[in-house]
């Protein structure tokens, strides 16, 4: 279930990239779910051809996936095959973080891979030949960019081996109806059907091809999300514990990346102590660490270290690290918005994970009771806390107020607020650009005096807004993707 502001942000992104007509079709799918072409035409009130073109654009850019299903016919009619369209919300939001993906490729694989990769981001899906053609066009325009075909193929293979690109699934996979003997594990939705060959049926074609029957390739967003998740875990552990802990965790995750069976792994793939130590030694920072130090760090990271280890393997609780990072983000909001006393009380309740009575909160956090009640009410009013009123009947009737942080509902609200804030930042960037569009058209050397000041002010605002958006996007991923 996508939140309201998540939908608004997605629609805004599509509108920025592809225009209002395409965004209207996208919004229809986001709000109404999986639809047929006829339904989209009816709901959007657009001309059929416009809808078809929009769906083609969205499909090209992996924002929508078409799939065919069998629909039971009416009385006396044979079942028929119909095509439906499902929007891929996550892929739309990924458009906002393309610069991060480019940075990862550039840092890990180099400039040539970066250039190929940018082509896939720009065009959504391309064949290898199309990538080569694009490179040729660009090297005609830019001196020094020319690379041999072999080198290009090599760069492309590196992208594939790193799992940063993948083959596109068939344009319109057929999802067979579940049989009586099928287990739930075998039933697949359109989203997961796109990866596994054995669930696809379309004239034997498993992969999408262009008109020249060449296999199309696209960015494998899941791999980037995995990398960014690892980065966040390492960053959090480094900040919370120390640099050494970051080095050890980084070594473990780097060694086991290709063995992870899903993106949101709860625990890292188990490794033996010797393997961990060998991996740590590979990095410059890890070379000076002793085995004892590594053991101590693993203990700090929550591993049970036996006194005598025989064939023991160790695994890090990544879900716990992500949980702590999420708590930190929300706590910082509470601190800034409601003050230090509210921060202390919120952290107490967050750690307790249960209902706590007002007096106990007030005593433990050293907040005067009347102030504590006021702050707790404020947090409750803004949906940060749940409250329960308990009345006891004894010799005298007593009333107790109990408070609790409910992570599951609060996290949903925080995520929606983040989508809202991201949309606001993007709208403000657009507003600032609109305000200064005349300045941007003046050649740089002619910007003097007041004009120069205006230009500098605009530039600084844009930097602040865009860097804030990237930082906010890290937090968005923390709550939505990790």
């Amino acid at each position, binding site marked *: 279930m996508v939140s309201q502001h998540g939908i*608004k942000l997605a629609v805004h992104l599509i509108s920025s990239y592809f225009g209002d007509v395409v965004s209207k079709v996208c919004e229809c799918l986001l709000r109404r779910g999986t639809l047929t072409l006829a339904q989209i035409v009816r709901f959007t009130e657009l001309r059929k051809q416009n809808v078809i073109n929009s769906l083609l654009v969205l499909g090209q850019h992996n924002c929508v996936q078409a799939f065919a299903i069998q629909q039971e016919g009416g009385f006396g009619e044979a079942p028929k095959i119909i095509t439906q369209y499902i929007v891929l919300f996550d892929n739309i939001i990924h458009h906002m973080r393309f610069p991060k993906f480019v940075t990862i490729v550039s840092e890990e694989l180099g400039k040539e891979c970066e250039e190929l990769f940018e082509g896939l981001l720009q065009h959504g899906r391309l064949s290898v030949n199309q990538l080569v053609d694009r490179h040729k066009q660009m090297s005609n325009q830019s001196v020094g960019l020319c690379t041999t075909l072999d080198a290009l193929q090599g760069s492309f293979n590196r992208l594939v081996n790193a799992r940063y690109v993948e083959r596109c699934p068939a344009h319109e996979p057929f999802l067979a109806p579940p049989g009586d003997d099928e287990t739930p594990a075998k039933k697949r939705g359109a989203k997961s059907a796109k990866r596994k060959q054995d669930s696809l049926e379309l004239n034997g074609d498993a992969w999408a091809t262009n008109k020249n029957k060449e296999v199309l390739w696209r960015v494998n967003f899941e791999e980037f999300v995995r990398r960014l998740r690892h980065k966040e875990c390492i960053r959090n552990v480094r*900040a*919370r*514990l*120390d640099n050494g802990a970051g080095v050890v965790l980084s070594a473990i995750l780097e060694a086991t990346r290709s063995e992870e069976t899903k993106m949101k792994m709860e625990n890292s793939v188990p490794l033996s102590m010797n393997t961990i130590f060998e991996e740590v030694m590979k990095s410059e920072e890890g070379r000076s660490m002793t085995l*004892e*130090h590594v*053991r*101590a760090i693993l*203990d*700090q990271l929550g591993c049970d270290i036996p006194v005598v280890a025989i064939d023991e393997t160790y695994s890090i609780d990544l879900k716990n690290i992500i949980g702590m990072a999420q708590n*930190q*983000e*929300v*706590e*910082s*909001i509470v*601190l*800034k*918005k409601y003050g*230090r006393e509210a*921060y*202390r009380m919120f*952290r*107490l309740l967050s*750690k307790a994970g249960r209902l706590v009575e007002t*007096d106990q909160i007030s*005593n*433990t*956090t*050293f*907040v*005067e*009771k*009347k102030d504590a009640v006021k702050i707790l009410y404020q947090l409750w009013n803004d949906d940060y806390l749940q409250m329960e009123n308990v009345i006891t009947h004894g010799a005298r009737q007593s009333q107790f107020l109990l408070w609790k942080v409910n992570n599951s509902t609060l996290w949903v609200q*925080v995520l929606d*607020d*983040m989508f*809202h*804030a991201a*949309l*606001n*930042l993007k*709208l*403000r960037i657009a*507003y*600032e650009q609109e305000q200064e569009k005349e300045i941007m058209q003046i050649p740089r050397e002619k910007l003097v005096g007041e004009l120069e*000041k205006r230009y*500098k*002010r605009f530039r*600084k*605002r844009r930097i*602040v*807004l865009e860097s*804030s958006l990237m*930082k*906010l996007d*890290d*937090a968005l991923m923390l709550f939505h993707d990790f």
Partner: protein
Amino acid sequence: MLKMQIFCALLVVFREHLGNTLLVLLLMFTLIGMSKRKRPETSSLAQSLVDAERVILKLIKSRENVGLWKGDIKSETRLPENVVTKALTSLQSKRLIKGVLSFQFKNRKHFIAAEFEPSKEVTGGSWYVDGNLDKHFISSLKELCFKIIQKHRVITGEGVHDFIKRVKATTVECTSQQISEILKSMVLDNQIIEVKSTGLAEYHSIPLGKVCYRCAPVGAVAQDTGAGAMASIPCGVCPRIRQCTPDGKISPSSCIYFKKWLDFDF
């Protein structure tokens, strides 16, 4: 009773020396004088006050170290306000009861029998003075504990308490329970973090698994500015976020908080 006995004895003596006539006259004058003289212990108001004091004192004693405030005393004894007030004043002057300000209800005084120490329920405990949280004392203790932890890098709660005792760092004696409460509050403030000893490296002097404390890393959320992504932008802490829409009265383009945040001078 004693006075009556003395009076009777005197009558016998006077009868022997003054004769009956004079005795009758003496008796008459004595009786006239007695009827005019005030006898507090026998007036109804005085009696009722003494009774009220007895009842109230008994009630207060029954509540041991919690006591009661005036409102509860009135409702339980069903005595008039002025009687209760006078009785309480009298009992206090006789040092049979004492008044303690309630930390929960600032305008209430709890009356506790003199032989009891007021409970934490009334006083708020060792952190309260005259019903108010002793914030200065608490913040001083926190500062002291932080410096001790900083100096030792990692230390247990008992270690902090022992250090304070040893160097006599405070003018008032602090119990280990108090230090523990202070440290817990500092953990909630993210000034320090609670860890378990690994017995290795800097933990070598601390038994394995024992809870100890170290300073939170620099950059941990302990500043008022907030280190989180949402807390760094106006929208993240905006009180009007729910009313904000792209084209509404409150919008990203018209937002005064954005304007202030992006106000750069060159």
